[in-house]
């Protein structure tokens, strides 16, 4: 997490006041104009387009698209998947960050790289690997079929694919934070007789809580929005294995644009809430930092 906007305004003022670090006014205006045009074309307008398209046929059509039974089923499934995947990766992230940040061992860098691995794998490949394991022709396919267990083209497959793609979020947020924090305070607590869990809860947790929250909301946004990986393992069964992004795709391909954008607008709202929380957390963390200084 960078110090962000809080230091930003003061920092920019310093740059703008100093003749050695400021550009001629025409140059500054040109850079700003180009940068902001780029911003509007590629970031702002797509966001506005989602809401504008969703409301194009009016509020009634918009609301009807959201309360329709397949849409409701997709919202439920999306929440269910996030409720399973996010806590799993939260617990893993804390455990992995503790091992990596608080101890020295050989292969630490390799382990950190491996944890980041799912970020570099194409979502489509992420879905494919679970087909190879649990699909009808997969390693465990025959066994699963004999025992009448469905993983692929069912909810467990969607959860697995989501867990895979959201795997690094919490860990990668916590590792640098806990490394920067050092070990002295925890070691003191342990020497004074605190158990490992007490040390974590009373000493470590208070200082990483904002980073932890940050990792969780990013993890959640991705879990609810994942498309490629889930699309491969879901089977697109309406009302049963369709998450919200998949429902958007189906509606869109049926040329039911108003409904597609209506469901998409919920996901866009989720993204906006995520970004607002992120900005708030950075502001809080920045304030704590300044107080500490």
């Amino acid at each position: 997490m960078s110090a962000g906007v809080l230091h930003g305004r003061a920092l920019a003022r310093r740059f703008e006041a100093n003749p050695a670090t400021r550009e001629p006014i025409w140059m500054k205006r040109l850079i700003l104009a180009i940068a902001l045009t780029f911003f509007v074309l590629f970031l702002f307008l797509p966001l506005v387009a989602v809401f504008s398209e969703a409301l194009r046929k009016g509020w009634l059509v918009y609301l009807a698209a959201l309360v329709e039974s397949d849409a409701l089923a997709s919202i439920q499934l999306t929440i269910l998947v996030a409720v399973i995947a996010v806590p799993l990766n939260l617990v893993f992230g804390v455990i992995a960050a503790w091992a990596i940040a608080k101890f020295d061992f050989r292969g630490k860098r390799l382990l950190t790289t491996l944890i980041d691995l799912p970020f570099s794998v194409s979502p489509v490949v992420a879905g494919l690997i679970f087909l190879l394991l649990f699909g009808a022709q997969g390693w465990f396919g025959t066994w699963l079929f004999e025992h009448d267990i469905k993983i692929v083209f069912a909810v467990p497959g969607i959860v697995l694919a989501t867990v895979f793609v959201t795997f690094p979020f919490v860990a990668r947020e916590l590792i640098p934070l806990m490394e920067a924090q050092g070990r002295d305070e925890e070691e003191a607590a342990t020497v004074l007789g605190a158990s490992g869990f007490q040390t974590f809860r009373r000493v470590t947790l208070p200082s990483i809580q904002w980073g932890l929250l940050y990792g969780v909301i990013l993890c959640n946004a991705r879990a609810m929005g994942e498309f490629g990986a889930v699309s491969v393992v879901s089977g697109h069964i309406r009302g049963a294995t369709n998450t919200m992004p998949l429902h958007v795709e189906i509606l869109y391909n049926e040329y039911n644009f108003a409904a597609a954008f209506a469901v998409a607008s919920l996901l866009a709202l989720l993204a906006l809430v995520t970004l607002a929380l992120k900005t708030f957390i950075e502001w809080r963390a920045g304030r704590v930092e300044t107080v500490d200084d």
Partner: protein
Amino acid sequence: MTAATVAILTSPPSLPRIARRVLPGFGLTLGLTLVYLSLVVLIPLSAVFIKAGSLPLGELWNIVSAPRVVASYRLTFGASLLAAAINTVFGFMLAWSLVRYNFPGKRLVDALVDLPFALPTAVAGIALAALYAGNGWIGSLLAPLGLKVAFTPLGVLVALVFIGIPFVVRTVQPVLEELEIELEEAAASLGAQRGQTFRRVLLPLLLPALMTGFALAFARAVGEYGSVIFIAGNIPMVSEITPLIIITKLEQYDFQGATAVAGVMLVFSFAMLLVINLLQAWSAKRTGRGR
């Protein structure tokens, strides 16, 4: 790969370190981490290589070098490189504006830079398709110029630019924030023009971060699926990206073909991961920042 990794990771560290280890839970947390990592990531990923490796070499080669697949590599890698280059230039300007200038709405711009991380790719895809279609807000402005974006390779480029924006901005921004102001003051007091200072002093310092941002955006773009397929048109040999080839093969129950192409993409991902790690190490060294 898994067995070797576990062997490296669990080999005992040097003795003095054990003596200094005060905190509890090392064995437990590392053990759990390795088990979870293996179950969720490493074993599933190894399935691709084992499955692809079980194909005869000639057949494997035929699949991954079929004309339609090669055309998809050309589009995917070409558009990703171009998108990453565009992001490097404009992302740099955006990062520069956010760090060095104050302007109305700066907070909003700063927050929305991360939109491509937070907005589901399918939503981004349909929004971009609506904007750049012939009757869309931007598409209708480009149509009189004879420029078609949606449902052409240009559409692929637009989607890849969108998803790559935060990588460059967020890599360059913190480095820009921590640059020492004295460097520029020294250059100016020695008589350097602003342009000279930028080229000779700032750019060399920012180069590793710019290249890291470029590599991150490129790596992400190559694997991207959701935001592209809605705007690409998906015409074989023309606007069909490699991840879509995998999906198409899966829909035809051609698991071997899908796995072979996925293997190519995975090998590329690993190579990019290595490059990015090296670039980040270089960047940290150049700017004197720790990890």
